[in-house]
């Protein structure tokens, strides 16, 4: 491992990771992004991209992601192609498949998600032979051929529309009753008008058949359990995604029961200095625009974290003198009232005791670390260790002097 310590290390190069890299590098932070494949993530596998604000029709997923990547690099973000296999969350050391290790002050996890597989007979064996999860990659093979699409969310309906530019016919298999789709209304409207799209309702796939290439699918009606075989040349599966968080299991990082990373609105995970963005975190809407927004928030939160942590370390933990850290907030009346007593008392020790004010409204994390719940609270540090804690009404000139008595000769 080199001695270099990055400010921000981003794991994953989709729109969330790239946006974090843009914000991080532009803030002049040493920013490293590690991506195992090509940058762009899932967004680079969708051709039609018509809902990224400011970019109307004609913008493609790969095109937009190329622009994101160049944007990040133009500000000086370093992009390395490698796969992160293990992270020491506390030490912030990242290990990759190629054997490299990188150390950073903060980590932004942007591992994204991958299409969910059905695990039905024939699916695995016929991948690359007609079974696909990526219309952009494979659509042009199906010129004048017939394909089926399984699924009815935004991705399924949008990609089915894209496939009609190539295929002879596109049959969408929908699990719901006739006319009901999960996709956005505008996508539905367009699909229902598309003469190349056919529909099979109340159904899913039971099997994909073919010798060397896909030849047919077995469709199962979920109401009657009836099986029907239909000839087709291709099967595109869009039944949701799964987060790529396997590599952070058992690191102490909080995940939900489906494997998504839990964050707050600052993109902070349960581990200090570790943030998560994009499709792999628990969130309401998984889109390029929300991933990018996550990335911007995480980079700014990471920058603030670095400033605060370094400030606290240098000014409090590494200080030779005793330090009285006053956790307070100008929003709390009691804290404002007590501040003059605190300041006058500490100041009377001159250079022997240092006063360090910490606004808990701005920095909750350090307050939490020292179990500060009352406002104001004085935590007295000596050589990096907590030696006394005084809360609210227990803070008087006498109690402060008493706590300092043993430390100041």
């Amino acid at each position, binding site marked *: 491992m080199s001695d270099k310590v990055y400010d921000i290390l981003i794991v994953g190069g989709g729109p969330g990771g790239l946006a974090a890299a843009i914000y991080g590098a532009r803030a002049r932070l040493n920013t490293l992004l590690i991506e195992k494949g090509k940058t762009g993530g899932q967004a680079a596998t969708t051709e039609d991209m018509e809902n990224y604000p400011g970019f109307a029709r004609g913008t493609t997923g*790969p095109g937009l992601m190329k622009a994101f990547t160049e944007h990040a690099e133009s500000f000086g973000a370093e992009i390395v*192609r490698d796969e992160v296999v293990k992270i020491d969350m506390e030490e912030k050391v990242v290990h990759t498949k190629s054997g490299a290790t990188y150390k950073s002050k903060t980590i932004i996890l942007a591992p994204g998600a991958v299409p969910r597989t059905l695990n039905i007979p024939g699916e695995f064996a016929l991948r*690359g032979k007609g079974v*696909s*999860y990526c219309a952009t*990659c*494979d659509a042009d093979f*199906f*010129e004048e051929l017939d394909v089926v699409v399984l699924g009815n969310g935004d991705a399924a309906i949008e990609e089915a529309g894209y496939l009609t530019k190539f295929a002879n016919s596109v049959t969408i298999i929908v699990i719901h009753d006739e006319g009901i789709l999960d996709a956005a209304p505008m996508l539905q409207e367009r699909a229902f008008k598309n003469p190349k799209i056919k529909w099979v309702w109340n159904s899913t796939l039971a099997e994909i058949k073919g010798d060397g290439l896909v030849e047919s699918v077995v469709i199962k009606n979920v109401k009657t359990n009836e099986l029907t075989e239909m000839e087709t040349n*291709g099967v595109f599966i869009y039944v949701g995604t799964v987060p790529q968080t396997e590599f952070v299991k058992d690191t102490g990082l909080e995940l939900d029961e489906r494997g998504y990373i839990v964050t707050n609105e600052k993109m902070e995970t349960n581990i200090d200095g570790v943030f998560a963005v994009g499709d792999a975190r628990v969130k309401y809407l998984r889109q390029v625009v929300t991933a990018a927004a996550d990335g911007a928030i995480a980079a700014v939160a990471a920058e603030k974290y670095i400033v605060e942590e370094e400030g606290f370390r240098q000014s409090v933990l590494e200080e030779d003198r005793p330090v009285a850290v006053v956790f307070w907030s100008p929003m709390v009346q009691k804290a404002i009232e007590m501040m003059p007593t605190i300041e006058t008392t500490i100041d009377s020790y001159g250079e022997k005791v240092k006063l360090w004010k910490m606004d808990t409204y701005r920095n909750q994390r350090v307050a939490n670390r020292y179990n500060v719940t009352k406002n104001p609270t004085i935590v007295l540090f000596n050589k990096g260790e907590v030696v006394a804690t005084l809360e609210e009404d227990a803070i008087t000139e006498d109690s402060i002097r008493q706590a300092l008595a043993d430390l100041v000769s």
Partner: protein
Amino acid sequence: MLEVHKDNFEAEVLQAEGLVLVDFWGPKCESCLAVMPDVEALAEKYGDRLKFCKLNTQGNRRLAISQKVLGLPVIAFYRNGEKIDELAKDDVTKENIEAKILELLA
């Protein structure tokens, strides 16, 4: 790496003696583009022991389908003109390709 297409595939792959690797790719397939430098590096390393070819499926669609390739990426292996093995989709990684090369050379 040798660029193969509908006009030379027969001669360079199907009539070739020994082991041949064919990287089926397309300009719109991001994962194909991502793995391409790795395949180039493997060609440097093992080029004297097997033949490395790449096939742009755009413009060679019928040829790809005739080789039972209907989706990308696919890395196919031929021995004496006969397709003997292949890696598709997520299995196409540098590690897997190298492992397969070593397995087939053994």
